[in-house]
């Protein structure tokens, strides 16, 4: 059997290594890659616009995926990042080959040093927040360790700001040396934000079942449902998870960009209707502040009520609580 005498036959040795390895690679790489690379998009799922595509290129160029994942895994803890686990269709447009030089971007990521971005367009839907955060993350999140992407912005004397320029609002004085200047976003920054705001988990069509989240402890799910169900949603953690990005944990907001809730006339008004309206449908009529995105689609009536009641009873605020039924009324009246 000289053919398989690897000790002395270098040809047989090398060819065996090569062919068997190719065979194994077919099983774990070529076959699944072939299977996974051709999915039809979900109905109504839109391809990226030209601007969003440019934003994705900036995202890749700055290597955002080094710290930010874009995959909601099918385990319980990832519920924080999306309503359902990710499915292959979610990536049909974003994971097409980027261009001749660059392959399909590795968006799923393997490190979650920063938050997952699958659904960031819903969570942080404000252009002003995104720009301020890119220019100086610590202006909105004091504990953030994200780099500040200053090179995506430039400074302009406040007299020469053009109509079309998008100025970063609410930047604290300590982050800008020359007080006469304003910070203006480059087209790259605007494209990147455009892409980030487009990151929203696409709803599944009717009849298509989403994969389920796997709970950590299946036993407790089955037996211990009664005790937790009655407690209702926790207004504080909902506020911290979503609202605090702009209005801050202190409720004081960021002057010039996001209004303070502490001592606010709307929050402290015992008639809760305006307050509910703003949370459900957003607000864009105050020239001093950036627009607020609507949150009606993200939260149930109970959750909206819990958030509002937390705001109404914190930081020295003291006004009458609202109920889920009131939220429902406002929602139905305005839809």
């Amino acid at each position, binding site marked *: 059997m000289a053919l398989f005498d*690897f*000790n002395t036959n*270098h040809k047989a*040795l*090398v060819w065996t*290594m*090569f062919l068997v*390895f*190719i065979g*194994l*690679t077919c099983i*774990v*790489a*070529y076959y*699944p*890659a072939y*299977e*996974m*690379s051709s*999915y039809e998009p979900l109905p109504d799922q839109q391809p990226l616009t030209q601007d969003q595509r440019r934003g994705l290129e900036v995202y*890749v*160029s*700055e*290597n955002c*995926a*080094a710290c930010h994942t874009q*995959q909601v*895994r099918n*385990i*319980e*803890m990832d519920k*924080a990042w999306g309503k359902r686990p990710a499915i292959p269709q979610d*990536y049909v447009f974003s*994971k*097409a080959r*980027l261009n001749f030089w*660059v*392959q*399909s*971007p*590795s*968006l*799923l990521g*393997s*490190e979650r040093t920063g938050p997952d971005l699958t659904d960031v367009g819903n969570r942080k839907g404000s252009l002003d927040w995104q720009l301020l955060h890119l220019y100086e*993350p*610590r202006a909105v*999140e004091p*504990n*953030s*360790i*994200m*780099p*500040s*992407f*200053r*090179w995506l912005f430039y400074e302009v004397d406040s007299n020469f700001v053009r109509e079309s320029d998008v100025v970063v609002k609410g930047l604290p004085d300590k982050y800008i040396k020359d007080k006469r200047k304003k910070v203006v976003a480059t087209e790259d920054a605007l494209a990147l934000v455009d892409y980030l705001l487009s990151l929203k988990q696409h709803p599944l069509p009717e009849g298509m079942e989403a994969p389920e989240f796997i709970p950590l402890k*299946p*036993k407790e799910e089955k037996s211990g449902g009664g005790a937790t169900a009655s407690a209702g949603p926790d207004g504080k953690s909902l506020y*911290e998870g979503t609202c605090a990005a702009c209005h801050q944990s202190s409720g004081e907001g960021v002057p010039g960009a996001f209004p303070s809730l502490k001592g606010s006339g709307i929050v402290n008004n015992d008639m809760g209707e305006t307050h509910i309206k703003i949370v459900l449908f957003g607000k864009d009529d105050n020239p001093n502040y950036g627009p607020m995105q609507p949150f009606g689609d993200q939260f149930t009536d109970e959750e909206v009520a819990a958030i509002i009641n937390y705001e109404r009873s914190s930081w020295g605020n003291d006004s009458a609580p609202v109920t889920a039924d009131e939220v429902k009324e406002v929602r139905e009246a305005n839809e």
Partner: protein
Amino acid sequence: MIYLRSKLHVLLFAVLVSVNVTGFAANEEEIDSWLHGAGVIGTIALVLMILALGVIIALARFNSYIKGYKQKKIEKNNLQFNEDILSMDSDQIDQILEQRKASLNYKLSGEELCGKEAPTDKRGLIYEITHDPKPTFVAKKQRRSKVFLRTDPELKKIVIAFISASAFWLIFGTVVGEFAALKFIWPELDHVSWLSFSRLRPVHTNTVFWGWGSFAMIGLAYFVMAWTSNTKLHSYKMAWTSFILFNLNIIFGNLALLMGVNNGGGEFREYIWPIFVPFFIVPLVMTFINFYQTVAHRKVREIYISNWFIFASIIWTAVVAVTAYLPINGLGETAIAGYFMHMGVGMWFMTFTLGLIYYYLPASLNKPIYSYALGVVALWTQMLFYTMIGTHHFIFSPLPWWLQTIAIIFSVGMIIPVTAGTVNYLMTMRGKWSHLAKSYVMPFFLVGVCFYWIGSMQGSLQATRYTNYVWHFTDFNVAHSHITMYGIISFVLWACMYYIMPKLTGKEPKQFLVGGHFWLAFVGMFAYTLPLMIGGTMRGLSWLQGAPFMESVVLMRSHWIWRAVGGSMMLLSHFVFGYNIYYMVKGYKAHASEAAEQSSATELTEELLETETI
């Protein structure tokens, strides 16, 4: 307070693991649930524990049986002795007692071995004479070899060039890594786009991969290939061309990364194809042809086991690298990403380095490898098991469930090649433990081999679904990759270098500095990895509890500081290492030409005298 609470969580986690393991072994109705994998694994662990218990009991029984047997024999002898004494007369007994007294009083004069003449050293064997031996603070290591290896000076040049380049890239890569680590503590360190964390991270990983590790391995392999085939290297021209191309790969690749041009962020393949294909894949194939032709023209009948591993490593890496750059879209790219991310490490670095151990470890101990057959088993199982496990980087992702399960099962199967390799190396070391005190080559090898087993087993455990639930996406991954790439690969490469470089250049680095390198790197690695493992666990648990994300960032801060401390020690050790290489290489050219002139000289003593005077 938060810290204390988190510490409790770590404890809780340990308890949870054990509770889950036992809970699921008993509960049949949950076989279809997600813990199925972990449950099975837990059961296996339990069975193994019982087996181990059985072995311990059996050994204890066996031991007591032997003890009883011995006791019976002793008693029998005692009876015989008593009878013998009773049968003797008093003169005989007196004679025996006198003899015993004389032998107890005997003393050595102290001059039995050396005589009374003054000592001379005709053959130049004595290294150092002292009349006043003082206890030293650190153990004094022997100069390991005085033999200036006589081999083709061209071969020496290429090996030394590769190793010097690797040392340069190691220092560069570590500086970048350290700078990136500092940014976790001071994110406002600078506002230069080229130095932003996200651009530097791939510069660090790619430099230590394609710069440090690859250069070191290939350089060391040139020597193994030519030496074990007992022939000249096939083509020096090819070797030098590949040397230049490999360097250009890192220079161009890093420049592109700093400018913000990368290949979509796929880990370890951030260099775009117009750089990676001509400057890595092409010289890789050239290197293979060079090695293959060298072995094909070998002057011995058999192919040494090291060369099996090195051939395998290069062939597999070529396949893996080409696969990585195929134009595949959608989640198909993610399937390839998992495959490449792991094969780049397992097929290139691990397989290659194992091959190097099979030559350099026995060579440094001056004895053959323990088992050739075990090495062959390790090679083929490495291929079978390692290839299948890439998807364990994407557990719970939208990749197919069966692919994830395969990855987990084969990750556990890695026990076979890893244990086969470890046993082989440790058994080779057996009986040569005194080398631990004699030189630093052995300590480097021992650390590398121990980490080979521990790091790989830890990786297998990390691949299971339950541990993934907690650890994935956290800094635990970073710790694991440093345990393996640093603890295994780097330590083994250093061992090989400290063995071969003095032989090539005829200059031995100062043992104090080699020791400084060893201890700084060793302690630094623990300061780096342990805090990240603890912090990573705490972070995963914080996510499990549904705490706000920023809480998990804040709790990592102290761990990131420790990581930077460990990183600084590692960086310092690399400067020392760089100096050691510089010290050995500096002025070696004279030796190379002298060695060429002397190639006809026959007497070993001449060379000995020559190196003695350096």
